[in-house]
């Protein structure tokens, strides 16, 4: 039982933090949002830092790191509300690394690690909401070659990605496929999302596909769990910065001749925000440290973590806006963008009520971190 970061982890954090501070200021971010919410150049910079290969083993050109390093990185990206979807890369590399055949790994992992290929999970279908067992896309095999048909929404950077991890039903069972953006029958669209990042539709009409994993349900759950752990860490970074902005503002803003930080009712609100932040950070640790646990244990942990994070993100986001007053709802103030990010993260990979249901249905007689 040890929650200290290693020197290497601290160095990794410092490197990402430095990049965010120097390379990802509010103005650059705004420009990216105005240009559609995704900048390949930024993604390349992340890859140059090695982050795209964080989960890729060294044999395939990656760093071969684990969930704690991913957490450290995602916290910093969250602190900088970075738009480019590194969480997707963690998912894709994690899932291909864990479930892909050797040739699939050899074909994709090096390109993912280098940043040459952006591969994203195409998960969302209308009618599925947050449930992973509702897949309408279908796959069929002819002459040893797979094709996939279906429609996915809210695909991260859909029209800028190079390939997609696609759950589709094959032989009555969900399986996981890899579909290239350039494949025949693939069309994508793009739009902004509420937090300023980019997403879009992916439409596949008998698109050629590579099978990644026939037991798609297991792989898909794993994929989403990587996403949840990343989201939790991203949320912690975003919340920490949100609280810092709020504290700065409260110590600066004067009303009735004194800084508003002197009002006890507001001070107690800040204490509650700090509480939520530390509980959330604790559960983000928990999620990352359980990410390599057996599936049932892993799933239960992610649900617990996402409930805590969801509640914390909503509370801290809302209270931050409230404590800022008018300035907190303006586009020109960076705080409002944190609020939107926190809002969107709550709805990513299952919202709080969804995961409360997961916790409820998985409850055992026992209690606690180790139960």
């Amino acid at each position, binding site marked *: 039982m040890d929650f200290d970061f290693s020197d290497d982890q601290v160095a990794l954090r410092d490197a990402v933090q430095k990049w965010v501070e120097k390379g990802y200021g509010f103005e650059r971010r705004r420009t990216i949002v105005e240009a559609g919410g995704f900048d390949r150049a930024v993604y390349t910079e992340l890859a140059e830092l090695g982050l795209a290969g964080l989960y890729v083993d060294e044999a395939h050109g990656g760093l071969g790191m684990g969930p704690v390093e991913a957490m450290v990185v995602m916290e910093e990206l969250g602190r900088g509300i970075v738009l480019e979807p590194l969480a997707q890369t963690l998912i894709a590399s994690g899932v291909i690394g864990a479930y892909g055949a050797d040739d699939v790994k050899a074909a994709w992992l090096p390109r993912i690690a280098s940043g040459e290929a952006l591969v994203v999970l195409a998960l969302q279908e209308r009618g599925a*909401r*947050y449930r992973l067992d509702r897949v309408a896309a279908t796959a069929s095999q002819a002459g040893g070659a797979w094709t996939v048909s279906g429609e996915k929404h809210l695909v991260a950077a859909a029209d800028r990605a190079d390939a997609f991890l696609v759950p589709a039903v094959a032989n009555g069972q969900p399986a996981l496929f890899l579909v290239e953006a350039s494949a025949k029958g693939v069309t994508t669209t793009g739009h902004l999302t509420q937090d*300023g990042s980019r*997403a879009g*539709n992916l439409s596949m009409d008998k698109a050629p596909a590579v099978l990644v994993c026939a037991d798609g349900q297991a792989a898909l759950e794993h994929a989403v769990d990587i996403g949840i752990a990343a989201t939790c860490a991203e949320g912690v970074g975003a919340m920490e910065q949100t609280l810092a902005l709020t504290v700065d503002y409260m110590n600066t803003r004067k*009303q009735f001749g004194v800084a508003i930080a002197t009002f006890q009712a507001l001070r107690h609100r800040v204490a509650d925000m700090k509480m939520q932040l530390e509980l959330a950070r604790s559960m983000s640790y928990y999620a990352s440290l359980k990410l390599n646990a057996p599936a049932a244990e892993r799933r239960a942990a992610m649900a617990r973590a996402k409930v805590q994070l969801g509640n914390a993100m909503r509370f801290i986001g809302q209270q931050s806006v409230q404590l800022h007053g008018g300035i907190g709802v303006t586009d020109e103030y960076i705080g409002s*963008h944190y609020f939107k990010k926190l809002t969107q993260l709550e*709805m990513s990979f299952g919202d709080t009520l969804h995961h409360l249901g997961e916790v409820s249905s998985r409850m055992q007689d026992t209690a606690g971190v180790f139960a």
Partner: protein
Amino acid sequence: MDLAFTPEEQAFRDEIRAWVRANLPAEISHKVHNALRLTRDDMQRWAKILGKKGWLGYGWPKQFGGPGWNAVQKHLFEEECALAGAPRIVPFGPVMVAPVIMAFGNKEQHERFLPGIASGEVWWSQGYSEPGSGSDLASLKTRAERKGDKYIVNGQKTWTTLGQYGDWMFNLVRTSTEGKPQTGISFLLLDMKSKGVSVRPIKLLDGECEVNEVFFDNVEVPAENLIGEENKGWTYAKHLLSHERTNIADVNRAKRELERLKRIAKTEGVWDDVRFRDQIALLEVDVVALEMLVLRVLSAEKSGKNSLDIAGLLKIRGSEIQQRYSELMMLAAGPYSLPFIEEAMEAGWQGDFPGGVTANAPLASTYFNMRKTTIYGGSNEVQRNIVAQTVLG
């Protein structure tokens, strides 16, 4: 004690309902029912329709050309408008400045300003908040110096709602720095087309420009535009605020939006999810309780008995409920509330919204926008201070 409206009240309601349904343009109510973007023209079109009927100043006494309704009638009018999907009446003219002009303005001012407000021709804006003066309004700094028969105004207002459309503006300005901050404030009407006035829209977190900064650079304002006496503006402003306004609870809109939430929940498949539905059920209880609270206030106003000093409660609860229904609508659509497609909030947009339900397009934006409700009009923290004062002394 009786929960039911009297037959007279019911007849009044029926009359209002019939008229509103007959006169409210369908394309406007469609926008309101679906939280689509309203233009200046939409708002003013409805204002002029009401104005022509004599109902834009629906709270005005007969002597000033209003219908002379009592508190219950006003409420029924507001309710019928809200449920029919009418845009909210932009309050700055008919609801806010008009009563001040009536109470403290002179006859010339009555004749000069009230007709344009009553007809909906003249769009008024409010100049209260300043960058340094939010909850602490009395600390405002915008100066108005008397020079002969004019005031020279310099300074800045902010959070001026829909100020980009404004023709005229009522302002609290500092005319003296003597004594307590409250005592040096005057109430000044200002033509926004005057030289030296500039308006800068502020983009809000939902991408819309609902509020503005308004700058005054040596703006000349004829002294005849001063309401009442110099340095007594704070009293007039307080008069305006103390006017018991059940409408700040916005319960009628909450009822309409609760019904919309239920429709959304059905479309999005969460109506049959016990867990989600309980959230709606709790909100339903909240809305009913708020409505009962509003009705109690109305009853007290009508009878003059048992006056209830609970405007602060109405503001707090009303705003919390507005935030909650907008939150639940967004959560109901879940992932499908996440696309931010600005054009999709225009009526008649023919694009392809992800998932196919374009009604989901404005949900997150509305949620974001509603954060303002616990901040503006006296933040909920200020309201709690006021409530506590009445309870604890």
